[in-house]
C-alpha cells in the first residue's frame, strides 16, 4: 500500500512539475538591448538607412542628420519644414515635410530637393513609404493614406474609429503584399491590401497610447508605443511576441538593419540597438 502511495505521489509530483514547466516556458527568441547611441542635440522622429549611413529626421530642428554605425555624425540636410518619418531607397531619401505639406526627394549626394508632384493636396504628411514603383503617404490631418500603385493614386480610409478608418495616421509601410498603417490615436495597426481594402487590425488589445511608428520585417511587426515608453513586437498574425521597455522613454520609430533592431527615442535623444537572441 505504501509503495502504491509512494508511486502515486511520484507520479503526481512529476505531473505537477511537467505542467509548471510548460507554464513557465520562457520565450526562446527575444530582442536584447546591445548598445545605446547618444544623439546629442537631435530629437529624432524618423529613420532610414542609405549607403550604410543612418539618416534621422530631426523635426524640432528642421533637418536631417546622418550618422555611421558608431554614432559619429557624418552629414546633414538643413532648411526643411518639420521632416517626419522618412524612407530611404537606392534612389535616395524621401522626406515628408509636415509643415509645408510636401514630399521632398534627395538624390544624394545632391542636397537639392526634388518635389514629389501630387494632384491631391496633403495636410501634414507624417510618413512616406517607397516600395519599387509604389508609394504610400500617411496624410495626418486628412486621416487617410494616399497610395500609388505604380499607375494610379488611391485614397484609403477616412476619419473614424471603425475598421478601415483612421484617427491621425502617423506612419505607413508598403510590403510586397500589404500596406501597413500606424493608426496612431486609434492606438492600433491596420493593414490593407493593394486595392485599399481593409484586411486586419493588430494590437488593439494592447492598450497602446499613440502608436506613432512602425516597421515591418520578414516575420515581425514593430510598433512604437510612444506615451507608454515601450516598443511592441508582434508576429504578422497579430500575436504579441515581445514588449521592449529597456532604455525607452519616447520611442518613435524603428528599423531593422543587418539583422539588428534600431529604435530611436525622441525625448532621450538616443538610438538603441538590439540583437536577436536565439
Amino acid at each position, binding site marked *: 500500500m505504501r509503495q502504491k502511495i509512494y508511486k502515486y505521489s511520484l507520479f503526481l509530483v512529476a505531473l505537477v512539475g511537467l505542467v509548471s514547466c510548460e507554464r513557465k516556458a520562457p520565450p526562446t527568441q527575444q530582442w536584447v538591448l546591445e548598445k545605446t547611441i547618444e544623439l546629442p542635440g537631435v*530629437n529624432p*522622429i524618423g529613420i532610414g538607412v542609405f549607403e550604410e549611413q543612418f539618416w534621422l529626421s530631426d*523635426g*524640432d530642428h528642421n533637418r536631417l542628420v546622418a550618422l555611421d554605425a558608431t554614432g559619429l555624425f557624418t552629414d546633414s540636410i538643413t532648411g526643411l519644414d*518639420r521632416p517626419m518619418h522618412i524612407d530611404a531607397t537606392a534612389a535616395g531619401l524621401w522626406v515628408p515635410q*509636415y*509643415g509645408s505639406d510636401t514630399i521632398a526627394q534627395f538624390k544624394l549626394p545632391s542636397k537639392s530637393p526634388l518635389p514629389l508632384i501630387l494632384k491631391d493636396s496633403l495636410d*501634414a504628411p*507624417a510618413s512616406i513609404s517607397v516600395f519599387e514603383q509604389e508609394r504610400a503617404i500617411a496624410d*495626418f*490631418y486628412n486621416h487617410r493614406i494616399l497610395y500609388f500603385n505604380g499607375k494610379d493614386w488611391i485614397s484609403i480610409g477616412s476619419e473614424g474609429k471603425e475598421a478601415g478608418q483612421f*484617427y*491621425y495616421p*502617423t506612419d505607413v509601410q508598403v510590403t510586397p503584399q500589404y500596406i501597413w498603417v500606424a493608426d*496612431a*490615436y486609434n492606438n492600433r495597426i491596420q493593414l490593407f491590401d493593394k486595392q485599399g481594402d481593409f484586411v486586419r487590425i493588430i494590437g488593439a488589445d494592447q492598450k497602446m*497610447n*499613440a502608436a*506613432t511608428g512602425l516597421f515591418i520585417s520578414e516575420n515581425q511587426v514593430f510598433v512604437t508605443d*510612444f*506615451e507608454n515608453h515601450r516598443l511592441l513586437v508582434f508576429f504578422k498574425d497579430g500575436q504579441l511576441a515581445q514588449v521592449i521597455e529597456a532604455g525607452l522613454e*519616447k520611442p*518613435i520609430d524603428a528599423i531593422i538593419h543587418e539583422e539588428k533592431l534600431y529604435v530611436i527615442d*525622441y*525625448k532621450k535623444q538616443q538610438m538603441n540597438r538590439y540583437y536577436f537572441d536565439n
Partner: protein
Amino acid sequence: MKTIVLFFSLLVLGSTVAFAQKNMDVFEVQVDGLGCPFCAYGLEKKFKEFKGIKDVKIDIETGDFSFQYPAEKSLSLTAVVQQVEKAGYTPMKTLIKRANGLVETDAPLEAVDQNVAGLVAEKMFVAGNCEMCEARILKATSRLQGVSEAAWDSKTKILDISFDANVLDRQSISKAIAAAGHDTKDHKASGDTYDGLPMCCKYERIEE
C-alpha cells in the same frame, strides 16, 4: 548710377519692412507640455493659417512660442490666451509688445503659503494621457485661489494637491479640472471640451 539705384531700392525696402514691423504687435507665449511632436508641429501649422499672422515660431525644447499680428486688430491678451488654449497649448505666461510701445503681460496667482493653518493635502484621480495633459491639469489648478502645490502623474493618473481648505474645496478643484477638459470621478468634461483636446490628449473617458 547702378549703385545709387541699389541704395535707394534698399532704403525703400528697409522703410517698408520697418513700417510693416511698426504695425505689428509681437506676442510671446511660454507654453508647457509640448511632449508630442505630431501635436506641437500641427498646432504650429494651424496657427500659421490665421489671417494676418506672421513669423510664427515655436521652440519645442524651451516652449517659446511667438508670432506677430496686425496692430489694427487689437488682439487682446485674453483672446490670445484663449486662442492658444483652443489650439491645444497650455500658456503659462503671455507677453504682448504692442506696436505703440506698450507692454502687456499676465502674472500667475501667488501660491499659498505652505504654513497656512488650513492647508490640506489630497489625492484625486484625473484622466489624461501625456505631458500636454499634465500641463493643462496643473494650469487649471494653478488658476484656483488657495492652491499651494499640485503634481499629476501620467502613469497613475493621480493628482497630488495641497490647498487652503478655508478658501477652496475638493469639489471646486474637480470642477475646474473638468472644465479644462479632464474627467475626474466627480465631474466629467463636456463633450465639446473633450472633442477640442489635441489628439494625443484624447484619454479613455471615465465610465459612469
